[in-house]
């Protein structure tokens, strides 16, 4: 078993609230400085910087995970992760059909920058990304699973867009296998209070700035023999799914 230090919730410059310096290469570089091994890019309702992030992460020896932070119709944030980049990009096409289009006002919300492998700007997303989609929390998990991904509620210890604040208590359906905490200190208390001892606990940063990215702290222990990054990714998803 090998320890893989991770951060599975990171925003890039494509999220309007993400810093313009959080380019795919800078994020991967920061991961190296922090001693991380697995990083997921999870912009609001889009995966369009994932291809660039994959290239950047691989150059930096980081195992990349393609993801998205989906905003459900109830304004709950759900982390969606995909084993393959292509699955994430297909899921993105579905989400594009289910977004509520409101023009971004960059002076209020910030830029939404799409990068290429070398952090060159190749486009901007014109409509605001983080606002609620028409995908309900009830259908979110099944939809993501249809694309080969996994999904779990983000930062459940936060008032803003956390599932517990929004729904009052943890819903019985859908049957999420994991929950994400922003601060692990609050985990024990909330898990007990809401009776969710059966969920796996993921701790991730929800980084909007490079300096928010997680340090060398939480890890997964993965049996990675004979080593390949594909095997590590496969084992990670097996763990998160069960």
């Amino acid at each position, binding site marked *: 078993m090998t320890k893989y230090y991770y951060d599975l919730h990171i925003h890039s410059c494509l999220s309007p609230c993400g810093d313009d310096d959080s380019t795919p290469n800078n994020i991967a570089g920061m991961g190296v400085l922090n001693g991380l091994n697995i990083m997921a890019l999870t912009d609001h309702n889009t995966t369009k910087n994932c291809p660039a992030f994959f290239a950047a992460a691989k150059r930096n020896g980081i195992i990349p995970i393609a993801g998205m932070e989906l905003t459900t119709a*109830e304004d709950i944030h759900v982390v969606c992760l995909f084993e393959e980049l292509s699955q994430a990009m297909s899921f993105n096409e579905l989400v594009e059909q289910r977004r509520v289009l409101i023009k971004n006002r960059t002076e209020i919300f910030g830029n939404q920058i799409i990068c290429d492998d070398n952090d060159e700007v190749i486009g901007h997303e014109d409509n605001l990304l983080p606002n609620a989609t028409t995908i309900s929390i009830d259908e979110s998990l099944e939809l993501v699973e249809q694309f080969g991904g996994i999904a779990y509620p983000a930062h459940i210890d936060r008032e803003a867009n956390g599932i517990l*604040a929004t729904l*009052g208590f943890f819903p019985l359906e859908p049957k999420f296998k994991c929950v994400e905490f922003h601060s692990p200190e609050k985990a024990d208390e909330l898990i007990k209070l809401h009776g969710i001892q059966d969920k796996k606990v993921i701790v991730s940063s929800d980084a909007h700035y490079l300096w928010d990215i997680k340090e060398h702290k939480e890890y997964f222990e993965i049996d990675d023999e004979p080593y390949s990054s594909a095997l590590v990714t496969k084992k990670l998803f097996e763990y998160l799914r069960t």
Partner: protein
Amino acid sequence: MTVNELIAAKGYKALALPEGERQINGVYIGDLLSWVMGRAKADNAWITIMSNINIVAVASLADTACIILAEGVTVPEDVISTAESKGVNILSTQSGAYETACELFGLL
């Protein structure tokens, strides 16, 4: 006024009406269920646009007289059947939360 009387007066659609004779006393408006749980009072008409099944549990816990879904929000069938079995009234209106509250203000 009772929930039945409100329906008769304003033509709200009854999606689930297991306790139509409940008295309405006051109004609470909110969509963030963790807030509603601690703040809605017993016998309030609770106006919301939240349609997740947890609204039934929250209404039950807070002992509200009815849920009024504003803006024509629809709910899945399992929400209605659960509401029926838990004695939770659910009404629906095309009006927004503010307009609905104004209508109730004139009646209560």
